[in-house]
């Protein structure tokens, strides 16, 4: 699952729902101010209570059978040393390779399929179809960790998972490491040029504004996001007009459509009216790993490195 793309899907669903009769269930990750680690206890002290998006969750003992239905959570769990405690991850959790991938779905979670793994903790991005209550009936604690909207949110989720799994210290180290690395990258980036960029989420073309988690990463580098000209009512994931992108002629183009849809400099050049874009002519089209570019776990740093590298090249 690439949650950001799913978020986009839910935005589209929202549109559909509005157009129909407003009955679409808005599964878009709500901007959550809730998640913050309440656990001040040292690593390994249980029971522990964690503030997740679904409220305060108390975990009685150190979980040894974790089921992660969120690719971001999976990456985080393995990064903070909780990997050995994880017994199953969902079908989209493709990183790291050693994660015990199963056919479980985080999009349409099936309580019986999850229960078969006899979990003592389940992590998921959204409470789809009342899964939290269903697992609650089986006395399984669930942490809902939705798409992060900013860095603090992302850090909080890592800290949450650290506290919930008895790896609070490692989690803190990971967060500190991320902060340092992002600060360093931001400081190194040449900002005097005010380069503009276009981040392509979908070939239609959908993009992201600076108010989204992805947009904030670009913000670290002092880049100007052409999608910010879209009015707020278009949402954080506006469908831009191809004409506007061409006219804006961004210095850099980042493609989160590289893997899903095989987009690259050549395919962009073939789009009507785009062949003359300076980013295409100057070879400043950067293909992104859309998994990394849509998750909010520790690998955000990798995404930021790619962006920083591109900015350095373009400025140099």
């Amino acid at each position, binding site marked *: 699952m690439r949650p950001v793309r799913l978020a986009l899907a839910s935005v589209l669903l929202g549109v*559909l729902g509005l157009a129909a009769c407003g009955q679409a269930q808005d599964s878009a990750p709500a901007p959550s101010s809730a998640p913050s680690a309440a656990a001040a206890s040292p690593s390994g002290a249980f029971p522990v209570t964690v503030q997740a998006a679904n409220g305060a969750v108390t975990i009685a003992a150190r979980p040894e059978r974790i089921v992660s239905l969120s690719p971001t959570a999976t990456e985080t769990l393995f990064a903070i040393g909780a990997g050995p405690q994880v017994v199953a991850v969902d079908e989209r959790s493709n990183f790291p390779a050693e994660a015990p991938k199963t056919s479980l779905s985080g999009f349409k979670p099936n309580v019986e399929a999850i229960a078969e793994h006899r979990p003592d903790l389940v992590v998921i991005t959204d409470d789809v179809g009342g899964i939290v209550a269903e697992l609650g009936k089986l006395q399984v604690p669930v942490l809902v960790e939705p798409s992060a909207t900013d860095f603090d949110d992302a850090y909080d989720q890592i800290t949450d998972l650290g506290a919930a799994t008895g790896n609070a210290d490692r989690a803190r180290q990971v967060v500190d490491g991320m902060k340092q690395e992002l600060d360093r990258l931001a400081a190194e980036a040449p900002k005097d040029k005010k380069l503009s960029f276009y981040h392509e989420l979908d070939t*239609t073309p959908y993009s992201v504004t600076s108010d989204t988690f992805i947009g904030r990463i670009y913000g670290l580098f002092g880049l100007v996001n052409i999608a910010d000209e879209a*009015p707020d009512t*278009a949402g954080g994931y506006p469908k831009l007009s191809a*004409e*506007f992108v*061409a*006219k804006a002629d961004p210095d850099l183009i980042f493609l989160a459509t590289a893997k899903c849809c095989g987009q690259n400099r050549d395919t962009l050049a073939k789009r*009507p009216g785009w062949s003359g874009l300076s980013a295409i002519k100057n070879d400043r089209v950067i293909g992104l790993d859309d998994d990394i570019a849509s998750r909010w776990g520790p690998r955000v740093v990798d995404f930021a490195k790619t962006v920083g590298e591109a900015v350095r090249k373009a400025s140099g």
Partner: protein
Amino acid sequence: MGVLRVPTPEPGPAAEPAAGPVTEPVSGPAAGPESGSVGGSAAGRATGPASGSEPGPTLAVTGSTAGPDPDPATGSVPGRVPDAAVEPVASPGTERDSGPASGTLFAAGGGVAIVPGWRRRVVPPLVAALVLAAAMTAGLLVGAADMPVGGVLLTLLDRLPLVSVDSGLSPVEQALLLELRLPRVLTAVVVGGLLAVAGAGYQGVFRNPLADPYLLGAAAGAGLTVTLAVVFLPGETGVVAVPVAAFAGAIGGVFLAYALGRTAGQGGGTATLVLAGVAVMSFLTAIQTFVQQLDVEELERVYAWILGDLGGSWEQLAMIAPYTIVSVGVMVLHGRLLDVLSVGDEEAAGLGVNVARVRLVVLAAASLATAAAVAVSGLIGFVGVVVPHVVRRLAGGSYRVVLPLSLVGGAAFLVVADLVARTVLAPAELPIGVVTAFVGAPFFVAVLRATRPVET
């Protein structure tokens, strides 16, 4: 309609149109007293306009066969009210000479007036053409990229043969105009025209005012094949294959419905066909939903397609050009036969019309038109069902008028809708399917309120 029929995460193009043929037509109750009092407006369109120009061999017989027994016709046409139908048909001789040819229903500014026939034949096409021209001009001048009006016009002028002017637009702006905006406007013209004329064709064939181009599973078929392409074809291939998949799926869906309808209802009327369409639609949509579940992360690509997109290119326009020409040509040429068909199967057969063949040909042409439109634009609802009705209300019910005017009117409507879609949130866009319903529905209601009922 693409929008309206997808109320939940299940992209069910099935749900909405399914209601179509089954539900009682909205225009039914209103049709009675009014059309009767205006004098033959309802039934007049069956014989009247056709007789205006050339009283060919077919029409010479019209009166005699239609006269004795108008019931089969009225019975099979939902919403047709016997009173209105019987009167003019019962006296065919005088009716052909005096009635609809010399005076008929014409609405202007909310009033209803009897105007001379020539004005009815000249004014609506003229108005439609002007509206289309105005819409296209606006569509070319306005867009997310600000370009000076003069520069745009000069650039377009410059492209005409034997004309060479300096427009003052930069090469990038010229590319924008000629590679993005112009093909987009033309795509809207073609798609809008195709959907509207296909809708009119379907309404004629099924004699049902709620028939729309997606009635026989074109939308569901295309939805399924597009989903398959998106989910199973990797990378760029999956993007490029969408138009072809949509075209093939739309044709396949209709073909399936037709084959089923024929085997199910031996010699039966159009009802079996419609029901077969409903079955095919539900079935294909179910498969589509299942396939989507296999690859949740591509959901939004499928939904984006379902909502429609007019970001066309010259290549896409060229791709559907032959189908467009053939299907539109065939349908427009069948206007008179559809008029004859509307008096009822038996009567039409009595006039020497091969009812089954006319139906098949028009159905095939309308489906081809729908498939061509769906291939380049996804599912755009509302145009196909509403434009023909607006045309009927404003210009009368003869298919010889409705078909060509729907073509022009649909084109104008979609150009305007697209203009709205790309400007209200500029530089972001609204999905076109949202706009057609949002703009179209109030407009339709306004036209309904301002005019008198005309039969399908």
